[in-house]
C-alpha cells in the first residue's frame, strides 16, 4: 500500500513523465544513429548515389523522430499539467 501511495503522488507522476520523455529521446538516438550508420556505409560502398541516399536518410530520420516526439509530447503534457 505504501508503494502505491508513493506512486500516486503527483510529483512522482511528473518525474515518471519526464523519465519517459528521456527514454523516448534514447529511442530516437538509437534509431537515427542506425539510420545514419547504414547511410554512411552505403555511401562508402557507392559514392555516386550520395544524393539519393542522403535524402532517403533525412526522410527516415524525420519519420523516426515523429515517433519519438509523440512520447516527448506526452511527457510535456503530463509534466506541465
Amino acid at each position, binding site marked *: 500500500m505504501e508503494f502505491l501511495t508513493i506512486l500516486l503522488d503527483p510529483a512522482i507522476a511528473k518525474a515518471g513523465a519526464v523519465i519517459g520523455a528521456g527514454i523516448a529521446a534514447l529511442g530516437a538516438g538509437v534509431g537515427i544513429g542506425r539510420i545514419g550508420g547504414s547511410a554512411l556505409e552505403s555511401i562508402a560502398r557507392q559514392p555516386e548515389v550520395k544524393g539519393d541516399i542522403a*535524402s532517403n536518410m533525412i*526522410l527516415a530520420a*524525420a519519420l523516426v523522430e*515523429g515517433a519519438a*516526439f*509523440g512520447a*516527448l*509530447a506526452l511527457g*510535456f503534457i503530463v509534466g*506541465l499539467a
Partner: protein
Amino acid sequence: MTPNKYIGYILTRLLMVGFFFFGGSFVLAAQEGHGEHAAQDSSLHEEAIHAAGQEIHHDYETHKGFEPGKMIMEHIGDAYDLHFWGSHEHPVSMPLPVIIYQSGEGFKTFLSSRFHHGHDTYQGYGILQEEYLSPVTGKTYFKGKIVAMNEQGSVNEERNAGLYNFSITKNALAIFISVILLILIMTSVAKAYKKREGQAPKGLQSFIEPIILFVRDDVAKPAIGKNYAKFMPYLLTIFFFIWINNIMGLIPLAPFGANVTGNVAVPIVLALFTFVITTMNGNGHYWRHIFAMPGVPLPVLLIVTPIEIMGMFLKPIVLVIRLFANITAGHIVLLVFFSLIFMFGETSTGVGLGVAVPSVIFTLLLNLLELLVGAIQAYVFTLLSAIYFGMAVVDDGHH
C-alpha cells in the same frame, strides 16, 4: 587563400565577435534587473495593493526573479498582444483586436489594451490570470483565456457559456501575414511566367521554380502516380505554408515570432484537410483494403479490420504530433539555451556574462538547425500526405 591564411581569417573574425560580446555584456550587466521577468502577481492582488494606495515597487525584496518556465510558456503560446520588448511591469507591446460574439448580445470588438495586460476587466470580460476550476460546474477555465468576468474577477459561467471568441490573436495575425506573403510571392512568380514566356526564369521565379518542380517530380509523381495533377495545388500549398510559418516562427522580431505551426490547432487543421481529401478520393480498392483486406481468412479479418480503421485515423494524428512537437520542442530548447544566461545571471552578473558567449553561440547554431528542421518537417508532411493520397487512388488493376 592558402589554408593557413583561411584559418587566420576565421580566427580573427571569431576573436572580434568574442570581444564584441564580452564588451556588450558589460552593458547588459550595468542594467539592474534587465531582462529578468518578475513574476506577475494575480490581478486581484495588485488591485488590492492599488486600492490600499500603495505603489507596486520593482525592488529586490518583492522581486520574484527570473522564471524560465513562465517565460518559455509565454513565448510558445498565443497572446492577445504583440509583445516587442520590456518586462512585465513596463512592456512595450501592440494590442490586438478582441472580437467576441455573445449570444443574445451580438458582436463586440475592442482592443486588448482595455484589459491592461490582465489587470482590468472590460465590458464584463477579462483575461484569466490563473487556471480556474469552477466549484459549481467542475469545469476548468484555462489561464490566458478571455472569459465573462465581473468586476471582482470571478468568472460569470452562464454568460461565458454563450461566449464565442473570434479575436485576432498573435497566431491569427501571423497566419494572415504568412498568407499575404505567400500570395504576393506566388502571384509575382505567376506573372513573371506570363511575362517571360519562353525565356529563362529570372529573380524570385528562379528560386521558386526548382522547389515547385521538386514537389512535383520527387514528392507527388512517385507517390501518387499518373493522376497526380489533381493533388498538386493542395500539396504545394501545405508545403509552402508550413515552411514559411516555420521560418517566421524563428524570427524574433515582433509580428514574426509567433509559434504558428507549434500551436496544435494549425497542424490539426492541415491533417484534417489531408484526411478529408484522402477519404473523398478513396476508390473501391482503398476501401476494400481497409474493411475487408483480400486474401485474409475471416478470423484474422476480425482483428485486422479494426486495426486498419484505427490506422486510417491514426495516420493524420501522427502527422499532427510530428509537426507540432518538432517545432515546439525546437523553440523550447532555443529558449532554454537563451534563458540560461538569465538564470545564471541571477546568482551573479559575472557568471551571467561568462555563460552569455557560449549560450549565444549555441543558440545561433540551434537556430540554423531549426531552419533545416522547419524545411524537413514541411517536406515530410507533404510527402506523407502525397503517400496517403497515392494509397487512396491506387489502381493495381488486378481486382
